[in-house]
């Protein structure tokens, strides 16, 4: 299956392929991007900006995230572009560091939940039998409890710290990943090439990693975006409730909570971190929408 069979325009643009062979991965990605709708472009650009801000927070932010640099609740101005918070810390700097802390923690949590849920789902699909049954029933019960409520129970017992937060949310979210990874790999497990690998005597990790995983990547990648949004919103909600990321770490959810009093005076500053959360989730959703559309289009 070559790409030229699908796109007639390649015939008139042979110069785009100097080697004459298949396009490199980079070229293919660039071609797909060029045809992406504006909403997807918007999403990609926003995610890119967030990444740059998160990685270079230390150099971009005018002040440190924890330093008291002025009076409490100073208005927007020359020295403090977005004013200061309830303790006199620079709002802009905390917003910038928040990109690193809030997004970073949500990202690590999602990675962990995919590692746990994805691997367990693969194991359940490949081995079948009682392992599949036991895992499936356990996950069913875990999913019967609303995630936020379960997280609250566990946090009240273990206490709130970043490590506990990551572990608890990752564990609860891995149930959803398990369901998806199990159901998509079940479609692949019955394929002849998996059977062939089994008859060759390959071990379970090899079958999972080399035969099945590459074939279930597209739905998993899309799910990663959606799960990230969900984890991100859950952590933001918990931090907003005062039970997630603890002070003095700059975090968008708790920043909204701490400065909420300003809203009653008509000051929009507390809405900025909340808006930053919403903008990122909307952007990821746009990109995932487009990706799903592409992935389903390619399968036809």
């Amino acid at each position, binding site marked *: 299956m070559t790409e030229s069979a699908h796109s007639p325009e390649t015939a008139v643009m042979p110069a785009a392929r100097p080697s004459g062979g298949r396009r490199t991965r980079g070229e293919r990605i660039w071609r797909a991007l060029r045809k992406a709708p504006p909403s997807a472009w918007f999403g990609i650009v926003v995610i890119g900006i967030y990444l740059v801000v998160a990685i270079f927070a230390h150099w971009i932010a005018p002040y440190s995230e924890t330093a008291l640099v002025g009076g409490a609740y100073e208005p927007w101005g020359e020295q403090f572009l977005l004013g200061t918070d309830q303790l006199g810390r620079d709002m802009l700097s905390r917003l910038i560091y928040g990109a690193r802390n809030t997004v970073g923690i949500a990202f690590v949590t999602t990675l962990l939940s995919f590692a746990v849920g994805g691997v367990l789902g693969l194991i359940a699909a490949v081995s079948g039998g009682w392992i599949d049954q036991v895992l499936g029933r356990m996950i*069913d*019960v*875990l999913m*019967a*409890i*609303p*995630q*936020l*409520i*379960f997280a*609250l*129970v*566990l*946090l*009240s*017992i*273990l*206490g709130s710290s970043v490590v506990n937060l990551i572990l608890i949310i990752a564990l609860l979210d891995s149930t959803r990943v398990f369901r998806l990874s199990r159901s998509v790999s079940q479609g692949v497990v019955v394929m002849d090439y998996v059977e062939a690998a089994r008859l060759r005597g390959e071990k379970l990790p090899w079958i999972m990693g080399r035969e099945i995983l590459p074939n279930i990547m597209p739905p998993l990648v899309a799910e990663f975006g959606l799960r990230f*949004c969900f984890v991100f*919103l859950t952590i*933001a*909600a918990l931090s*907003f*409730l*005062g*039970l997630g990321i603890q002070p003095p770490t700059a975090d968008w*959810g708790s920043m*909204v*909570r701490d400065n*909420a009093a300003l*809203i*009653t*005076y*008509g000051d*929009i500053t*507390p*809405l900025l971190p*909340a*808006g930053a*959360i*919403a903008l990122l*989730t*909307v952007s*990821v*959703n*746009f990109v995932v929408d487009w990706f799903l559309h592409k992935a389903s289009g390619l399968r036809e």
Partner: protein
Amino acid sequence: MNPVVRTVLQRLGLGIATLFVVSIIISMTIAMLPGDFASSILGQSATPETVAAFQREVGLDRSPVSRYIDWIGGIAHGDFGESYASAGSLAGHRREVAEMIEPRLLNTLFLAGAAALIAVPLALILGVLAALYRNTLFDRVVNIVTLSSISSPEFFLAYILIMFLAVKFPIFVSLANVSPDMSLLDKLYAIALPTFTLVLVILAHMMRMTRAAIINLLASPYIEMGRLKGARPMQIILRHALPNAWAPIANVIAINLAYLVVGVVVVEVVFTYPGIGQLMVDAVSKRDLPVVQGCALVFAATYILLNLLADIVTIISNPRLLHPR
């Protein structure tokens, strides 16, 4: 036996079994308590004797099984135990968890009910309209607005509403204080903003699913038949498509009502509404475990019940099961 009755009974049994296992999990989580818990509740100055007395009172010295049987047995009689905030104090009045939960649960159900009463009809109407005028400007605007409201944290929506409807244009109040002696109208006025927030939170998903369920059916031959007969688009959707779309729509409505129960936690905190969600958040930060467990059980039971309802509605509205060959 009729297959519908049999499937419904199966689901009911499964739901009760799930609730049972969930109650075990909620009770077992106490076993994960870190060792220094008693001293962190009683303060650093607590003597070993007070700590031991506290642990006996809480039941930490007994086996998990007997603790669970006591707990679940009490709940069967409507006794959720006593709040830690009062345990350990020698005289003082004891606060029963059940007493704390009951009035707040009623408040929460009132708020969630008001939100559901507005959101469900609105979602159906908007969904049908979006399906009718699909791929038009109206559809696209609704699509982008709903996608953004799904992706926003609840507190963002809540504060935007406060900003515009309580601060810039003081139409409503931002503190949703209700007390039992208020008239219904006063209560409804007080909860206007939290209700709007919850409506926005659940509206989007229900509306999108309604639209998708109807559009999904529009390719069916009987829709084409209706169109060839010359029926008007509105009539095709209301008379031909909608009746067949009820199953997925009812399902998504029930799931969203279940979600509402959880979404209410954050909204209650924003508007300082005296509901069970705020009670639970307070209890978590005080690590008042009996209250946390009681609230969690109530939340989980409501959630499981509504999901069960979703299952049953889907089964009942499936014509293939209703008319077995």
